[in-house]
């Protein structure tokens, strides 16, 4: 176990990067600060690889090693250590978190070029990676929660990185507050767990997961539902998803890292981690999870069909894909959820970075209706984006096909209705992604027309309103790497011949065993074929409407209700400003002013008036006082008499 003792390096390296940058970031300047940060995360990735190799070499049933660093909170019955758990699930998470993070750090060196707070960006990024690693590697719920909160805070920092824009600042606040609602659920779940089991550790003799079978069903259901509230906040499920589209205000690498690949997967990770508790809970819990996941997936997909901003489409797409993962969890297909999480990390990060490359190349233009035919100007971005598109749409043999298919199979086993929702969502996914590809990379060069129009209207000294350009190597290299990963990523869990299910076998010790109805291979092939047909249908519709025709002719396909995301945000705002304000006013003017202040002031008035009345006893005349004395003596005598007993 000697090698594994160095596991603390995994979170420590990004933390060290953070500290160094805080102290000397400004001095290091661009691009050295970025390289330092990237190196820190890259070194962490290498460490994870070493640990992974070590764990693989261990026999399967001993693959859960706890590396304790120090005693953190020894309070009475609660003894929480700062310790890392190295088991298949956590190492898997750590692998792709650090891997994708390294690529995105590299990418950011190019993307954030010229920004005056360059080093600050990497400070936050490193801190984020540290928090995320604490979250996935922790061996107890409390330390995980620390990481959970940490990523939430970093998300806030990074979303509102360009805080001089009020929309960015507002988006940051919205993300943080919505997350807090979820965190509340997590905390309640922790209280329940401690109450039921007496400990917050994952495994071990007092571990929550090892003793999950002993938790009464009602408590277990409550714990699962509360954790799901937390997961819904972090993983943007209905109704706590509202922060994610607004989070696109942050720089694109942030969207790629946090809101596609890592932070939003924390919720799914948590649910998979507590699979033993889910197994001990009643069926209601899993139904709630599955239904919300499916509905979210469909809901978000419909909105994505009508968005013009290149990043907003991807944001809603993320919510939709997370819905798939949650659906998988609810159906008991934990491996499918993790599988999709990994493939999604690859292709969504790829898509986001590609979008960032497009934005960068188009000189900060984000409206797809103003792009077009960029394949001629940004070839590398184009090709890698195509790979991502095919992956997310679920076309074989790319990774997305295998993972999405497994989820749909799991959904079918749970309930054909859920499967149908998933199928429709797959169709819509293919549709809106194809729409995006056609608008951005094909068709006419609409940006040229716009430039011509605006230069007619006023004197435009922006020489940059010239042609788009391809991004530098620091940005395209990660794109290529991710594209390769998205293409061949399916290899880790191919459902062929049973032996190629590497991921499933690898993750087995960490997840609860679920008795799922096994499908015949014929059924699986049938489902897979149906999914592919749905994808092709979506592509075909998009081809007809967006490739052949001009964008302006398709106004009917983008109804206002979808463009405005079913008016959810407007509805919330109306609710808060209407009844919410009434409640607040009542509390302020009636409750606080009259009742509370009235009580306090009333007390003061009472004392003052009482004092004024009592003051009348102080006449100043000695004889009055003597009278008082005499009266007191007589009273004492009387009392003595009473006591003595007549």
């Amino acid at each position, binding site marked *: 176990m000697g090698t594994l003792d160095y596991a603390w390096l995994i979170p420590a390296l990004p933390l060290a990067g953070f500290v160094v940058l805080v102290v000397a970031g400004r001095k290091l300047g661009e691009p050295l600060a970025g390289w330092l940060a990237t190196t820190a995360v890259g070194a962490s990735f290498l460490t994870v690889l070493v640990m992974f190799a070590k764990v693989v070499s261990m026999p399967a049933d001993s693959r859960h090693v706890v590396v304790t660093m120090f005693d953190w909170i020894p309070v009475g019955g609660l003894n929480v250590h700062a310790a890392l758990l190295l088991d298949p699930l956590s190492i898997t998470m750590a692998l792709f978190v650090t891997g994708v993070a390294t690529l995105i750090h590299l990418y950011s060196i190019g993307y954030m070029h010229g920004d005056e707070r360059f080093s600050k960006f990497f400070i936050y990024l490193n801190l984020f990676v540290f928090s995320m690693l604490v979250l996935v590697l922790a061996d107890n719920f409390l330390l995980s929660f620390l990481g959970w909160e940490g990523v939430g805070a970093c998300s806030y920092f990074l979303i509102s990185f360009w805080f001089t824009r009020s929309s960015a600042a507002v988006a940051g606040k919205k993300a943080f507050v919505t997350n807090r609602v979820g965190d509340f659920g997590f905390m309640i779940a922790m209280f329940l767990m401690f109450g039921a089991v007496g400990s917050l550790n994952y495994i071990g003799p007092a571990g929550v997961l090892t003793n999950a079978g002993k938790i009464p069903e009602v408590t277990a259901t409550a714990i699962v539902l509360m954790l799901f509230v937390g997961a819904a906040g972090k993983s943007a499920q209905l109704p706590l998803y509202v922060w994610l589209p607004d989070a696109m205000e942050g720089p694109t690498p942030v969207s790629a890292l946090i809101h596609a690949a890592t932070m939003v997967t924390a919720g799914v990770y948590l649910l998979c981690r507590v699979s033993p508790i889910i197994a001990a809970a009643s069926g209601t819990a899993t139904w709630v999870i599955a239904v919300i996941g499916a509905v979210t997936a469909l809901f978000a997909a419909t909105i994505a069909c009508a968005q013009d901003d290149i990043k907003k489409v991807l944001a809603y797409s993320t919510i939709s894909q997370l819905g798939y993962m949650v659906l998988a969890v609810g159906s008991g297909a934990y491996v499918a959820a993790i599988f999709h999480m990994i493939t999604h990390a690859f292709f969504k990060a790829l898509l986001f970075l590609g979008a960032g490359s497009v934005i960068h190349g188009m000189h900060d233009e984000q409206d797809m209706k103003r792009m077009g035919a960029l394949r001629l100007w940004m070839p590398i971005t184009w090709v890698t984006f195509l790979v991502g598109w095919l992956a997310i749409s679920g076309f074989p043999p790319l990774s997305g096909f295998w993972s999405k298919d497994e989820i749909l199979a799991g959904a079918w086993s749970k309930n054909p209705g859920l499967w149908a929702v998933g199928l429709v969502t797959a169709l819509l996914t293919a549709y809106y992604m194809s729409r995006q590809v056609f608008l951005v990379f094909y068709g006419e060069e609409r940006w040229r027309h716009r430039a011509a129009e605006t230069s007619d209207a006023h004197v435009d000294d922006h020489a940059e309103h010239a042609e788009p350009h391809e991004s530098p190597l620091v940005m395209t290299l990660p794109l290529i790497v991710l594209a390769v990963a998205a293409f061949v990523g399916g290899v880790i869990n191919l459902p062929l011949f049973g032996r190629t299910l590497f991921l499933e076998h690898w993750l087995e010790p960490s997840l609860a065993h679920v008795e799922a109805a096994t499908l015949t291979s014929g059924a699986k092939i049938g489902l897979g074929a149906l999914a592919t047909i749905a994808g092709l249908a979506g592509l075909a519709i998009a081809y007809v409407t967006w490739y052949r025709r001009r964008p302006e002719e398709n106004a009917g396909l983008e109804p206002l209700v979808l463009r405005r995301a079913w008016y959810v945000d407007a509805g919330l705002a109306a609710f808060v400003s209407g009844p919410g304000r009434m409640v607040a006013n009542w509390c302020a003017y009636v409750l606080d002013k009259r009742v509370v202040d009235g009580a306090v002031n009333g007390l003061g008035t009472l004392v003052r008036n009482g004092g004024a009345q009592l003051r*009348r006893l102080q*006449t100043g*005349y*000695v*004889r009055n006082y*003597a009278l008082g004395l005499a009266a007191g003596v007589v009273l004492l005598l009387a009392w003595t008499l009473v006591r003595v007993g007549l």
Partner: protein
Amino acid sequence: MSLGGEWYLILAAILFTIGAFGLLVRRNILVMFMCVELMLNAVNLSFVTFARMLNDIGGQVVVFFVLVVAAAEVVVGLGIIVAIFRRRAGATADDLHILKG
């Protein structure tokens, strides 16, 4: 054989009451002081009576001390009165009401 002590105690009580009444009703400072002396005498009487009833010389010793202290008290009290009421002819206790609340 002497008279039973109860008589003396009753007398002392009545004397005390008269003194208290006088203290509360009269306005002249010196008369008030004299009423205090009356009360002290009543107490002395009762102490001596107890000394006899209980056959304990301690009662008389207390009287001795009361006498001494009363003397000292009168001296200082009159000194104060002199200091306050010097040249204020016809002043009464009611004229000192500056400490009215």
